[in-house]
């Protein structure tokens, strides 16, 4: 017994805390785009439904709001876990920086509160509220969703660009300037990048479901609208995202040179730095493999000076103040994935826009539907990769150049247990959520969902009917 306890007590909490934070954030970030952008897409359909008396659009808006009820609830639950984990995993970070880092969250709480209230009114108000009154109860969701994510990203940006406080000689926070904290240097571009990502991922994710439905032969107007509305939203956001991403990268080049060196795999400070596609950094500091595009990284960093732009290399930083070799390789690979998939989505957005301009209609080919049906997953991977670039590239710092992740972590050795617990519960939750969404979609198609108010009600005929449909492929509402 004692030996077991000793073993438990000797487990280093830091890697487990890091893994738990990474895992729970990686799951939550998939639900964020749906929470931020789905309401806007539902309102577009809702508006069309009322204005043009469009029954298909109205039905889409109603069903989307029902799905939203599920994804929003799961997103709220996984989001709450993050507030717990700030404390449970990083108590020293919170003790030292809580009064600074917490400020954006006070405002995020405000926005999230408002959002949750109007989400409830909107999704429960279909039957008894007047159509336009009901429509307007959805509008605050769009704004609070955007403002809420801006507030959260502001806190994250502060970790990259810590400002707005005064330290005493012992390194304790003595005075805080809330304005400086919230509007820190990294905040505008990082927030813009994330909000656009939320619209792109949300749009492509929803559209992909209808693309699958169309591939399976459900090419009615309802499915076409279900693809066109979200796809157009994502496609419009895409070019802006390219611009926002480019500006943000240049901000990193200017202010976080070590992250930039990891991104571009720059071993030694030099000019005319190539953009290396793939490839890896070795423990001895050399780069092997990969396809270098001569001078491109220098040129992109500052087109003004072109290929003569000097990029700081990894060798110019103390080794304990930059990410480890493994982390650098992770950052670089994630960067390549983000840029690759982002460019792919940009091309598809051009395809979409071009076809609309030329033919006043969406692309009709099966190839397009195949591509569109993959973009949901592709956009999620792209966003996850971007998030890895930002967070792993910041290592070993939790607060850039002020506190390391190691210093911030809990001393509680039981973190590995909660890590296993979280992985298990999140897996089950993901499976259950997908199961419920698919069941809803199947139920909508069998169209006999008149009465389901009663929890634990007796099995209804609709279930028996849908039972016979189990074999038919599903995947679209």
């Amino acid at each position, binding site marked *: 017994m004692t030996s077991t306890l000793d073993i438990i007590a000797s487990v280093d909490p830091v890697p487990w805390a890091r893994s738990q934070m990474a895992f729970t954030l990686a799951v939550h970030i998939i639900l964020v785009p749906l929470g931020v952008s789905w309401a806007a897409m539902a309102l577009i359909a809702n508006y069309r439904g009322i204005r043009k008396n469009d029954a298909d659009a109205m039905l889409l808006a109603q069903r989307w709001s029902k799905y939203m009820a599920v994804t929003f609830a799961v997103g709220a639950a996984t989001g709450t876990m993050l*507030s*717990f984990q700030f*404390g449970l995993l990083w108590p020293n970070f919170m003790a030292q920086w809580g009064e600074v880092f917490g400020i954006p969250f006070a405002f995020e709480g*405000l926005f999230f509160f408002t959002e949750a209230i109007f989400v409830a009114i909107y*999704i*429960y108000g279909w039957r008894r509220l007047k159509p336009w009154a009901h429509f307007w109860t959805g509008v605050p969701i769009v704004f609070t969703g955007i403002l809420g994510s801006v507030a959260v990203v502001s806190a994250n940006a502060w970790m990259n660009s810590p400002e707005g406080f005064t330290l005493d000689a012992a390194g304790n926070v003595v005075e*805080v300037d809330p304005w400086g904290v919230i509007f820190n240097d990294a905040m505008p571009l990082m927030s813009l990048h994330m909000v656009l990502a939320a619209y792109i991922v949300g749009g492509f994710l929803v559209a992909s479901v209808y693309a699958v439905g169309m591939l399976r032969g459900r090419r009615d107007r309802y499915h076409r609208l279900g693809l066109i509305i979200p796809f157009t939203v994502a496609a419009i956001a895409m070019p802006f995202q390219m611009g926002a991403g480019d500006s943000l990268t240049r901000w990193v080049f200017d202010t976080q040179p070590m992250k930039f060196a990891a991104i571009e795999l720059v071993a030694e400070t030099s000019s005319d730095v190539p953009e290396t596609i793939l490839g890896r950094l070795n423990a001895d500091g050399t780069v092997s493999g990969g396809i270098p595009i001569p001078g491109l990284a220098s040129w992109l960093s500052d087109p003004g000076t072109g290929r003569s732009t000097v990029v700081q290399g990894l060798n110019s930083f103390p080794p304990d103040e930059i990410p480890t070799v493994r982390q650098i390789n992770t950052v670089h690979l994630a960067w390549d994935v983000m840029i690759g998939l982002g460019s792919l989505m940009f091309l598809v957005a051009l395809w979409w826009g071009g076809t609309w301009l030329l033919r006043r209609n969406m692309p009709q080919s099966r190839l397009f539907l195949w591509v569109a049906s993959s973009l949901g997953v592709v956009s999620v991977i792209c966003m996850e990769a971007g998030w890895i670039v930002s967070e792993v590239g910041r290592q070993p710092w939790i607060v850039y150049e002020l506190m390391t992740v190691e210093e911030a972590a809990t*001393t509680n050795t039981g973190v590995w247990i909660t890590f296993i617990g979280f992985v298990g519960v999140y897996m089950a939750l993901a499976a259950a959520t997908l199961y419920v969404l698919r069941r809803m979609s199947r139920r909508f198609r069998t169209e006999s969902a008149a009465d389901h108010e009663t*929890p634990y009600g007796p099995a209804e005929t609709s279930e028996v009917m849908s039972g016979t449909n189990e074999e038919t492929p599903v995947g679209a509402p």
Partner: protein
Amino acid sequence: MSTVAAIILFIAIIGYSIFGGADFGAGFWDLTAGGTARGEKPRAVIDRSIGPVWEANHVWLIFVLVVLWTCFPDAFASIMLTMFAPLSLVAFGVLLRGSSFALRHALLNTRDRRAFGALFGVSSLLVPYCLGAIVGGIVSGRVPAGGIAGDPVAGWVNPTSIVAGLLAVCAVAFLAATYLVWDARRISDDAMVEYFRRRAVGAGIAAGVVALGGLAVLANDAEYLFAGLLSRGLVFVILSALCGLATLWLLTRAQHRGARLAAVGAVASTILAWGVAQWDYLLPETLTVEAGAASSGTIWAVTVATGLAIVLVFPAFGLLYFLDQRGLLPDEGMPESSPARAEV
């Protein structure tokens, strides 16, 4: 300035208790409603009652956490380190409660609903108990100041924690039952009115017994709080007892609206009694509110956010409850065969 932060924190705790707490209590009654057939009607009332509001109610918890860590970061770190185990349980409970309720709501078939319903009920029991136990550990001085860990087991497994945990469970069950009486009356289901009325009375008596017995425990285990309850906090202790008795009396006289208000008064004044009795300590008796508070710039920012919340969130929250009480938020979406929207 630090006093302002403490007041905001306690307003948030009271908000979470009377809104979020009632949702946990509803989960308790859902869990104890019996088998599929017997529990069908009470569960229908519960589902209808908390469906539109639970998510907004849940945000109070986030607000409590944010205010605590932003305004009192040292105490937050100490609590998180000491209470790692019960807080992890709370986290899992909150996660499972919310998602399983939402998932159950979206499903039709009995087997799945029963599984998610059981998760919803069990986690609704676990969360208030653990939160109560954490408060018990704090008030009995088991969380040390200075961002360090206290005893990871005795911190929340001790006489005061057990009393506070049980009291929390009884209080939320009591609160929920008085709300559910009202909601059952709104859909004019007399059998359910009676069903929840009996449970409200039972839970109210249980809460009273635990509270009285708890005082005896506090006398030995949490002296500072006990002394405070009998001096500074006495007026709230008496108010809480009077409100509790008034609730029981109003329930037996079928004054459901009054009973609901009195129940809110009982729970709110219990929490006020705790806050006032523990004053001016954040962590009795090692860290005062003043010593533990963040810098004034931070507290200003939180006060501004709270002010904005009063301007923006409270009217919205009021609108939600107004629409809900008027029966204007009957269900998600609408039955698609319904012609209700066709006349538009």
